[in-house]
């Protein structure tokens, strides 16, 4: 096996047209983003709404086609594939959505949810199909299986529904899962169970995950590495523990200070609470308008993501100089 990562994203850009004052302009929710994920690794993507994290997830699934840049999956370019090749790609990549109430079909039984991908992608029929459904449901902890199979989504709790969504994602035998806020809509007492399940799957199948979340605490728990985004750019990326122990970017520091669970409360290190400017014409660092350490340079020149150590990279003028 080579050292090449399972997924390598290079200079990814996604732009959307918007209408401002009657004129068509563009915003860039994802602006020249590069990262990689190894087999059996969890990359946690953390950011607030509007940071571009979900857009990246959708681009990975190819629900969106990126404007430019490349997505190499298993050393094959998949950023712009279509038709048969795209379908093939999607048997290796699956997504778990935030809302388990919206992602299942209310008029289909749990069994039917799993049948479709198994028939279409694995050509399973009859007995084999039946056994595979049973084993999938067992794997995600939906026992007794016989009872679960014939239930409809409304008969399940949020946590159980999310387990069905995970089983469905696993049905095609993927190597990479995009999990977009999979626990944020669940009750607190069952969140841990879903995180644990994903952890087990990762270990067992050497699955790679892109774990999209706004919660640094769960990112630290599940993620091997954390990548912090703001305004479509990566601000900082590091091993999970390292990032929480030594947050270097002012935005990471702000996020960390705002997350509940500290022994002592400190004032929030920000100067305003404006949302990020995503316009293509933006200049300088996207966080400049909120940053307490802002300098003249920050407003003019966009900082580059630079490696501080092998596993820690930061995009900030303060740190790189």
């Amino acid at each position, binding site marked *: 096996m080579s050292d090449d990562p399972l997924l390598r994203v290079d200079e990814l850009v996604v732009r959307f047209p918007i209408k401002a004052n009657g004129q068509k302009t563009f915003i860039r929710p994802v602006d020249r983003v590069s990262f990689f994920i190894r087999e059996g690794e969890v990359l946690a993507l953390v950011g607030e709404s509007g940071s571009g994290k979900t857009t990246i997830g959708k681009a990975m699934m190819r629900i969106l086609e990126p404007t430019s840049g490349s997505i190499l999956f298993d050393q094959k370019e998949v950023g712009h594939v279509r038709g048969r090749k795209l379908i093939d790609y999607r048997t290796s990549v699956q997504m778990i959505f935030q809302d388990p109430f919206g992602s299942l079909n209310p008029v289909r039984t749990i069994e039917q949810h799993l049948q479709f991908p198994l028939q279409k992608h694995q050509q399973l029929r009859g007995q084999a199909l039946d056994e595979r459904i049973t084993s999938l449901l067992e794997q995600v902890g939906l026992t007794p299986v016989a009872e679960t199979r014939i239930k409809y989504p409304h008969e399940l709790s949020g946590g159980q529904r999310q387990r069905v969504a995970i089983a469905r994602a696993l049905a095609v035998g993927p190597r990479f899962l995009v999990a977009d806020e999979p626990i944020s809509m669940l009750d*607190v007492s*069952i969140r841990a169970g879903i995180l644990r399940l994903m952890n087990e799957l990762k270990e067992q199948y050497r699955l790679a995950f892109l774990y999209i979340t706004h919660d*640094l605490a769960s990112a630290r728990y599940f993620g091997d590495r954390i990548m912090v985004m703001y305004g479509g750019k990566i601000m900082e990326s590091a091993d999970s523990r390292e990032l929480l122990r030594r947050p270097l970017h002012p935005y990471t520091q702000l996020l960390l200070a*705002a*997350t*509940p669970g500290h022994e002592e409360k400190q004032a929030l290190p920000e100067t305003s609470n404006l949302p990020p400017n995503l316009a293509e014409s933006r200049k300088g660092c996207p966080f400049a308008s909120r940053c307490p350490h802002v300098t003249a340079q920050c407003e003019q020149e966009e900082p580059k993501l630079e490696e501080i150590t092998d596993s820690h990279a930061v995009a900030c003028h303060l740190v790189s100089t």
Partner: protein
Amino acid sequence: MTERKPVLEIEHLSVAYDSPRGPVQAVNDVSLAIYEEEIVGLVGESGSGKSTMAYAIMRLLKGVAYVTGGSIKINGKDVYGLSKQELRAFRWAEMAMVFQSAMSALNPVMTVEQQIADTIRSHQKNASSAEIRKRAEELLDLVRIDRKHLKSYPHQLSGGMKQRVVIAIAICLKPSLVIMDEPTTALDVVVQRSILDQIQEIQREVKFAILFISHDFSLVSELASRVAIMYAGRVVELAGSRRLRVAGEHHPYTEGLLRAIPRLTADDVVIEGIPGNPPNLVELPSGCAFHPRCAHATERCAVEEPRLQKTGQAEIACHLFQGREVPQHV
């Protein structure tokens, strides 16, 4: 310290919803008091009855929901003893509420100023425009929104700003109790923190009591001085928030919640979660509703419902603590 006057006194409150399979008890024999200028947290999962309780206090229960027993007093006045007219004057002047979805709590076709004016006029008929303008400006200053937004419509504001406007409207008549039902759940972490900081600041300045409802345990324990934990319509534990940050003598459900969330600081803590699923109120387990999910459950738990009793410095509804040795929690 407990010499303070209670603002809210809930005694043995029960609320039921009619369903095709008979009444469903959403709130079951809950007693709770909130004192002047105190912040009390109410934590529970979906279906635990926490929002139903908020609506019951505001006397906003509608349709199939109704109070089946108990009483609610605010500043000594029985909320359910008021006539319709009295209630109209009482609501918002003495008790106000901040709803979860700021997006839908505001009227999309009215400016911020009009909405504040509307609220003030409905209680003070002869308030002059100048007075109202002045009050509205004060309120926006208080929640730190630029005065120019008096003329803004809700869609022109960000989520955090909308929630701040909703808070401003809630406190515009200087109520002594404000109920906040998941006021920051839909917001980003940073915005959430800054709004919570602001709530505390305003509360200290203007002085009112808060019943803060949330599913987020760590958030509530940072904000409130006391926290009530609800499970399946009952309060299972009532304790000071400092005590709730550490494992120790707690209801097994509370213990479970404490270990269910990944923490920022603690290294290598294995999070466990609570086995099973939240209870179905239509088919509530017998005895203690938590017993099917509880690691310490005994035969007694399946038959007899535990009452809330003083245990050390907290109140806990669990047989383990009643006339028995305190279990050793890890």
